[in-house]
């Protein structure tokens, strides 16, 4: 799509230019480097060097930030990782969180998008309201929901009592804590995915829906057989980015549950954070971070492979 423009941008390619022109070209080159210099220097110092440094760290036993003694330990960090049950427990929790939060979040946000996609008076107000939690920081969201879910004085248990539902110990019960965070996540992020779904919904050609309706398809059939298949690119985008984001969840577990109760919400990034910055095993924590990245990478590749196998390769 952009290649035509790019080709034009690069089209003053050299073929037998006069010296003056060549001199101008060389000056242009220098200007080009000047323009990208600040961002590129930043990239090298604060992205490339840390990535390489992280690999280096993962092969060393680095237990203090003082840069003094960091013996090379080869693959030891990675080897001991394999029998590190708490780490795999955290990985399991991360996967559990992702598997729950991605489909629930996508279903809720799609429903919202379908509703606010209608031409109704005042629908923009509702869109803005649904978007409020998105702009709110995770810390504020966490603090609000801690109080809402408080067992004796929270609003949620009060509503449960009114509806004659059993009282829950939401965040202090290992069985419900992760589920509660998934619900909070849905509340916080549904508006974001809704905007992305909306962009997809608005690209669905009206004629197709009208044709289906003439063929006797009801609203529900139209949605399942016309709209949803046409939304496939949006669905794929949300699944893939949602899974990546789910594997990187950190803040709610840090603020709301501190990985508890009994490690029920100890997720990978929180686990790595604790190893690195509370126990100062920076080498070992780096190895864990790389394993997490490898898992995310493989899971993403598997999803892409699955999509391609289903013959929808034109979508990625």
């Amino acid at each position, binding site marked *: 799509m952009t290649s035509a423009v790019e080709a034009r941008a690069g089209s003053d390619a050299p073929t037998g230019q006069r010296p003056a022109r060549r001199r101008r070209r060389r000056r242009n080159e220098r200007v080009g480097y000047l323009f990208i210099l600040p961002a590129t220097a930043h990239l090298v110092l604060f992205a490339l060097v840390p990535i390489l440094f992280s690999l280096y760290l993962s092969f060393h036993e680095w237990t203090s930030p003082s840069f003094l003694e960091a013996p090379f330990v080869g693959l030891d960090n990675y080897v001991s990782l394999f029998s590190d049950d708490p780490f795999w427990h955290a990985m399991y929790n991360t996967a559990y969180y992702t598997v729950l939060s991605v489909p629930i979040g996508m279903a809720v946000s799609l429903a919202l998008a379908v509703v606010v996609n209608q031409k109704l008076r005042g629908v923009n107000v509702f869109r803005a309201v649904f978007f409020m939690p998105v702009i709110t920081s995770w810390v504020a969201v966490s603090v609000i929901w*801690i*109080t809402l879910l408080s067992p004796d004085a929270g609003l949620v248990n009060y509503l449960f009592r009114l509806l004659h539902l059993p009282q829950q110990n939401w965040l202090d019960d290992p069985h419900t804590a992760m589920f509660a965070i998934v619900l909070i996540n849905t509340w916080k992020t549904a508006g974001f995915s809704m905007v992305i779904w909306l962009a997809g919904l608005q690209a669905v050609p009206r004629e197709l829906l009208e044709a289906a309706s003439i063929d006797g398809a009801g609203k529900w059939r139209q949605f399942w057989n016309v709209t949803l298949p046409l939304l496939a690119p949006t669905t794929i985008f949300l699944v893939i980015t949602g899974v990546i984001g789910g594997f990187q969840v950190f803040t709610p577990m840090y603020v709301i549950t501190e990985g508890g109760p009994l490690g029920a919400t100890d997720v990978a990034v929180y686990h790595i954070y604790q190893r690195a910055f509370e126990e100062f095993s920076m080498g070992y924590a780096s190895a864990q971070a790389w394993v997490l990245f490898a898992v995310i990478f493989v899971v993403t590749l598997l999803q892409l492979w699955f999509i391609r196998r289903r013959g929808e390769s034109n979508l990625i």
Partner: protein
Amino acid sequence: MSRRKTLLGVLRALPTYVILSLVGAFMLVPFLWMVTTSLKPSGTTFSYPPDLIPDTFDFGNYVNLFTLAPFGTYVLNSVVVTTVTVVGQVAFCASAAYGFARLSFAGSKSIFVLFLATMMIPFQVTMIPLFLIVFKLGWVNTYQGLIVPGISSAFAIFLLRQAFLTIPRDYQDAARIDGAGEFTVFFRIFLPLVKPALATVAVFAFMGTWNDLLWPLLIGRDEDMRTVELGLAYFNVTSSAYEQPNWPLMMAASVVSLLPVVLVYLCAQRYFVAGISLSGVKG
């Protein structure tokens, strides 16, 4: 006639409005709860049944926030860090994006691909070495430490490059023929043409920096270098360890932390939504 028609339309849409209102209430009640709790007397434990609207409004928590806790310092820190990051990101990324999109030089493509490749490595992988680098530079507990690592963004460069690519080449040529230098072309012609994209980058940088917890958690260790988010998180983490947390005070802090974000959102809503749709549609 037409009035009856609109009435009929409203009636038919009634179920939809009921659904919208229920969901809207679900989205808004937590915010209402936050505001009203912040207006209860400091240290109040919750009453049963919970009163969503208290009988009296007490603004004492907002006063306490700035007198008992150093919340003013947190706000100042957040303002400084966020402002410099936003300005820096727009400047760094706009110039780099322009270089990649409109100037030809050897290695331009491969350097750009390098930028894109780093987007794939999650922050969790780089945060440990990044902390060690910042530590080595002596930047822990400094503004530099909080700001510099986030002052450029590969995603912003990518977004702005796309914007620059849509501008016809004739603009550049015409200005050059008129004798304008590369910098004039950039500042006078191209930057004004991509204003919406610049606004999107600025809004994203603002939200990302103001709402961030993980990096300030590593760098803002001393109390006087905490940002609003970090201060709020520490209120929660430390208070629950010893005592019953002071919910009304924390809710007041949450309200203060939210105000700038809501303001920016109200002013720049369409850039925000445009940015999200763009990132989604690209897939």
